């Protein structure tokens, strides 16, 4: 129980220190988990992080579950994950309540109108960064363009694109093997 609390608390601290999501968390994880607590080796952490990026869900959560699971089994995985999300729950709930109360003020509305422009740019930059890693040849470019067009013009849940793309990936790679 003490170990579970330690896991929860350590990951809660890391959650509170991380600004900007999974990628910003890696250096903090290295210091806390590998150097201070010795819960995982450097190589294990790199593996966990790599798999955490390509499995469903939030990268920080996936990595936390991995490390907790390695240290204390299933209960450890759950404790570490609850730890990572705990600061967000507290901070965002307080802020969301506050913002709702001030949303009618003119200067708050003006500030958010400015921020929305910035958010456009931030999302665009995220797409640019992901593009470099995911669109590696002509076929992945076609998949990107098809999903992009579908996402803009069709009223369809993103779930279908994800399922179709996974199938397409397997089929395309199999054809490639046969063609060789």
């Amino acid at each position: 129980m003490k170990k579970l609390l330690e896991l929860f608390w350590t990951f809660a601290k890391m959650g509170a220190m991380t600004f900007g999501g999974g990628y910003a968390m890696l250096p903090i994880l290295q210091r806390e988990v590998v150097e201070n607590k010795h819960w995982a080796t450097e190589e294990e952490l790199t593996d966990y992080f790599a798999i955490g990026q390509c499995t469903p869900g939030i990268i920080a959560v996936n990595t936390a579950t991995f490390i907790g699971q390695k240290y204390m089994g299933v209960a450890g995985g759950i404790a570490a994950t609850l730890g990572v999300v705990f600061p967000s729950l507290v901070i965002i709930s307080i802020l969301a309540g506050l913002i709702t109360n001030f949303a009618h003020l003119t200067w708050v509305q003006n500030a958010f109108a400015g921020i929305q422009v910035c958010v456009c740019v931030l999302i665009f930059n995220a797409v640019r960064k992901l593009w470099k890693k995911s669109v590696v040849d002509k076929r992945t470019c076609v998949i990107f363009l098809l999903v992009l067009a579908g996402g803009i013009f069709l009223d369809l849940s993103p779930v279908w694109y994800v399922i179709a793309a996974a199938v397409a990936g397997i089929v395309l790679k199999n054809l490639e093997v046969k063609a060789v």
Partner: protein
Amino acid sequence: MMATYLRLCWEFFKTGLFAIGGGMATLPFLTNIGETTGWYTQTELMNMLAVSESTPGPIGINMATYVGFTVGGVPGAILATLSEVAPSIIIILIIAVMLKKFRDSKYVNNAFYGLRPASTGLIGAACVSVILEVLTCIRVASADGSLLNSFEMTGGSLLNLRGLILAAVLLVLTNWVKPTKNLHPIVFIGLSAVVGVVFGFAGV
């Protein structure tokens, strides 16, 4: 209220299960939830995203908490967040047992060959609709029962010129100017807030 909570759990469980590639990958799902349930508008979602980027914690979790709070207060925040991480916990616990097999699996690697560009495409589509919403008067509307989205014009000028200028400046600063491009997004969000207040961006 009970029905809303259940719907909230279900929608976020789906998001956690199908959003691949980190926090921003949940955006297309959150946009879809807003459209189908009417719980929040695209503009509200953008504000939530801005707050999520500027506060501690993983962006994906912050957004789930914020959306959950908007829909159902503190219980909503807790339910949305826990539902979003539940699939991750289950999947990672399974993978952890067969780590080596998973990493070397041909099927998994091939599936991700298709999944990665698709995930980028989905975020790209969300990006287009957000840009239309903020910088132009064109809106994407999903008509009931129709597979095709329709596009409509709202009143006002076609392009939001001041917004476009700010966007262009930010784009250059975040990508091509060496001293500023590695600064944390919170700096640019703060800067944009100040510009918005000084120039009265909301137009009210």
